[in-house]
Every structure is written in C-alpha cells, then in structure tokens.
C-alpha cells in the first residue's frame, strides 16, 4: 500500500506576496522514499514541473476551483530504462523504491466501464510476483483499488494533466500461478 501524500499548501504564502520556492524545496527534501508531494497553489506552477521533473518527479495537476491548483508530484522509476531496479521475487512487501519498470502499459481510456478494470486485471494476472504493469485509465479507479487490495497487489498512481489516471501495479505473491 502507498504512503499518504506530504501535503503542502503554499496559497497563504502566495497571498501574502511571499516566495514559496524554498519552502517547497525543503518539503521535497523531507519526503520519505517513494512519498509524493501534494502541493496546493493559487496558479499552475509550471516552472516547478521542470525543476522537480529533473529530480525524478512526475507531476499530475488538476484545477480545484477558484483558480487554485492541486499538483501531486510522484517520484517514479525511470521508464524504459535499460537497467530496471533489481527485484527479489518472493520477498514479500519490499521497499517502496523497488518498483521495476512495467512489463507493459495499456491505454484503457476509451473503453466502456468496467472494461478498463478488466483489461488491467488481465495484465496483472500475467505477472510474476514483484513485476509491474502500468495502465492509463479514464479516471481514478476506486473499484479497481478494492479488487487489487483483495487480491494482494500493491499500486501507485496519480491523475494525469488531462483528467485521466495513470496506475502502476506491482503483483503481490501468489498471482499468475495457476489456481
């Protein structure tokens, strides 16, 4: 299971005319491994996307009303990197940093509900414990989370800029085995 976000609301600083950059970078330094930063700002902080992107954070932004924006910066493993993180199958829930590159990534955004869930779970069923798949879903898949939890898988995900949802699922022990 994932950790809760580190919440940082810089709107009061901005309102007071202050510069929140140093506060934000302090927060980033204080994050636990694998923890996401959830930033609330009164505008879309595009310059931050570059800065934190270079540090390995993927931003997912959404407007939350009143002109304010919520951006979740999620630390992700390098996609498509030739050397995936060493994975030790069968060792059970590992350090959050041990998320290998996904075996496949499915785009399920144009499928009728519940097809996105079905496709994603089909992909998960084909995994050995510790392997991951990624999927692009039309929205935050609350029913899928229930099913993943019931089947003993872990996941990380975040909304994308265009309102979709990207999920990375790591197979728990005992999946993919014929039963």
């Amino acid at each position, binding site marked *: 299971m994932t950790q809760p976000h580190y919440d940082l609301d810089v709107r009061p600083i901005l309102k007071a005319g202050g510069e929140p950059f140093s506060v934000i970078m302090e927060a980033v330094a204080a994050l636990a491994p694998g923890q996401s930063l959830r930033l609330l700002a009164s505008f879309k902080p595009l310059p931050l996307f570059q800065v934190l992107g270079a540090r390995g954070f993927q931003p997912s932004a959404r407007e939350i009303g009143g002109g304010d924006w919520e951006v979740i910066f999620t630390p992700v493993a390098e996609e498509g990197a030739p050397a995936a993180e060493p994975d030790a199958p069968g060792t059970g829930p590992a350090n959050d940093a041990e998320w290998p590159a996904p075996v496949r990534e499915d785009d399920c955004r144009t499928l009728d509900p519940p097809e996105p869930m079905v496709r994603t779970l089909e992909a998960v069923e084909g995994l050995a414990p510790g392997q991951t798949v990624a999927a692009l879903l039309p929205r935050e898949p609350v029913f899928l989370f*229930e099913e993943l939890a019931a089947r003993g898988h872990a996941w990380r995900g975040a909304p994308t800029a265009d309102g979709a949802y990207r999920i990375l699922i790591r197979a728990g022990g005992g999946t993919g085995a014929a039963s």
Partner: protein
Amino acid sequence: MMGASLSRWTMACFAAALVCLVAAEALMVAGYGYPVAPLRAPETLFLVHLAAIGWLSLLMLGALFQFVPVLVAKPLRDPALVLPAALCVLGGLAFLLAGFLQMAGTLEAGRPLLAWGGSLLVAGFSLAIWLLGRTLWQARPLDLPARFVAVGLASLTVAMLFGLGFGLALSGAVDLPVLATLDRRAVPFHATAGLAGWLTFTAVGVTYRLLPMFMLAPEGGRATSRTAWWLGSTALALAVVVAPALAVAEAGEGALLLVTSGAGLAGGAAIALYGVDLAWLYRKRKRRSVELNIRATAGSFLALVVAAALLAVLAATGRLEEHAGALVYLVAFGWLSGLGLSQLYKIVPFLTWLECYGPVMGRRPTPRVQDLVRERRDTGWFVLYFLGVYAATAALLAGRPDLFRFAALATLVATLALVVELVLARRLANVAASARLPEGTRLPRLFIAAQRQN
C-alpha cells in the same frame, strides 16, 4: 487513493423505493389524492410523501451511500449507520402516512402519529446526512459533483426541519407560532427545499460524474458547471432561507416577490447552463452509440426544461396556485422519477456485475454489463413511461382527472415492466445459462450486496 466497496444496503433501498413508486402510481390510477381530491387534502399529502420520501428520497439515499465514496475516492464514514438511517426513514414514513390517514379520518388512533413520523424521519435523515456529510468533509477540497451533493444535503436539512415543524404543529403536539406566521406559504418552501434542493441538486451533481463515465466523455472543471453551481446555490438560498426569513419577519409581499423572482431567474439560468454542459458532454463523447439509459436521461432532462418553462409561464400569468399540482407532478414524475429510472437501468446491472464477476475479472471470461439487460425490448417501456407522464401533466392542466388516471396507468405499466427487468438483471436471467456463472462466482442476492473478502 482508497477503494470504494459495494454498498451493502443500496439494493435494498432501491427495492423499497421502487415498491413505493409502484404504490404511488397505483394510487393515482385509483383516483386517490389529487386531482380527484383537492391539492391540500390529506389524501394528496399521503400520495406526495409516499412519492417524495418513499420513492425519491430512499432512491437518492441508496444511490448516495454507494456513490459518494466513488465521487470523493474515500470510503464511507460510519457505514454501520446506513441500515439504521434507512430503517428510521422507512419507519418515519410509515408513521407519517398513518398520520395522514388519521387526518383524512380513515384511521382512528389517539396518538400524535404525524409528530412521531416527523421525528423518526428527522432521525433517519440526520443519520444519513451525518455519515454522508462526514465523508464529504474529509475529502475537502471537494470537486464539483461533490459540491452539488453537499448543497443537496444542506437543502435536505432545511426541508426536514420544515417537515418536522409541520408534523409537530399539525398533530397538535406543539404550538409553533412561526408556522402560523408562514401559514400557507410554508408548504412551497418545504416543497422547494425538497424537490429543487435536495433531490434535483443532488441528482444534477451525480449526473456530472455518471454521464461522462458511461458516455466516455471528458469530465468537468468547466466554467459553465461552476457557474451553474453558484447560480443554483444562490437560487436555493434565496428561495428556502431568505424568503422564509423575510416572511417570518413580515417584510411584505413586495420583498418576497423580489426574492422569489430572483431565485426563479437564477434557478432558470442554472438549468440552462446544466443543459449546455449536457450538450457539450454529448458532443465530446467517445462512445458513438448511446445506450438506453442515456437516451432516457435526455427524456428526463426535457421534462425539467418543460417544467421550468411551465413555471415561468404560470408565474407570469398569475396562475401558479391554480396549476401547482401539474407542475409538481411533472417535476416529480417527469424529471426526477424519469432520471431515477434511467439511472437505475444502468446502475443496478453495473453494481450486480461488479459484485458477481469482480472476483474473477481478468481470470475468466465474463459477460458484458450490457448483457444483463435487453435494451431493445426496454426502449418501449421508457417511451411509454414518458408519454404517460406528459399526457398526465396535460390532463392536470386541462382539469381532466379521468384522463389523468388513464395516463397514470401507462406510467404504472411501464414502471412495472422496468422493475421486472431490473429483477431479471439482478438475477442474471438475461445472460445465457452457459456464460452466467463461471467458476468462482455466485448469484448475487436480490437485496443485499456481498462484501469483497480481503
């Protein structure tokens, strides 16, 4: 990022709600209550509350218990309160209806039934508002559909308090001078808070999430939606908070007229913007063929537009009091019930599919959600339903109770057919027997949803 589980009691709420709908329609066919009886007769009150609380409110509560966790992607707070809330609402309704029978002279009972009914309803609705409200509160900042639901719950509180006041005063249990001051004007405040605030506002919020989901359209954050929310909330605040306050303070007819006209204009504009959003969703949809539940939703929205136009015309020509019954009927049975039936037609199969095939998703072949119903034969029932509602409204406007009863029969027959279809869907009867229950699945129970075991 939390999951949403299947709500255990939602199907039971839906079943009880549908029983109340069929009962209300049967009463209308039988000529019980308006228009055969006067608008303010106890028989009409019986009919109205059976429909508004037994059918529409129970339907909405059942839907919210399942759907609010999905809207805010957080689990329901205090789910143990769901069953007590629903039981209190049902019990309160029973006492309330008995109280109306008492008023009509049909029932002899030396007890303040209306007061008991009102109190039990307040208990039930308060429990529901508490658990839904806490769930929303913990999910702040809320996105737009959830904000609509929040305003809907606030309106329910207002409607509920008015109702309690009526119940206490009418049963003679308590003397409320405030109600005497409001006199005949209190009922429209109560009805507006209930129909426009609680039921309509909440329904609109839910459709802002459900329709993009099933049409594969992009979701919200549009300026028109936000403006619709502001205008609608303003209209409600004017209509059910400011206006009653002015009436109690005896501010005079002129001030009241100004405030209610402002509410009407703001509300009309909100409905127009909602229509703009629906049209935009339809244009941007990725799913080319539109399913029956979406087409039926369009039918219900049309009823809302016609009702809004009717309200404007009646208000302008000063005939609102005379034809209020027709207007309320169209809003309750055309817009709200039409929307309810069209959403049930998708929600019941979808939840049933998740409950039954969820555990084997991705492991074994499963039927599609669409296989749980037979759209081709059900299209006719929805057409019959809406035709019946429009004919009944016209009959009410024309002052023809006999034609009204005939048109109500059409709605009753259509409703019964759709109820049968929903039961068939729940029992997976429309799915070929060979594909119905792959290994590892069990037939869902009719009224209670099984919980996924971890």
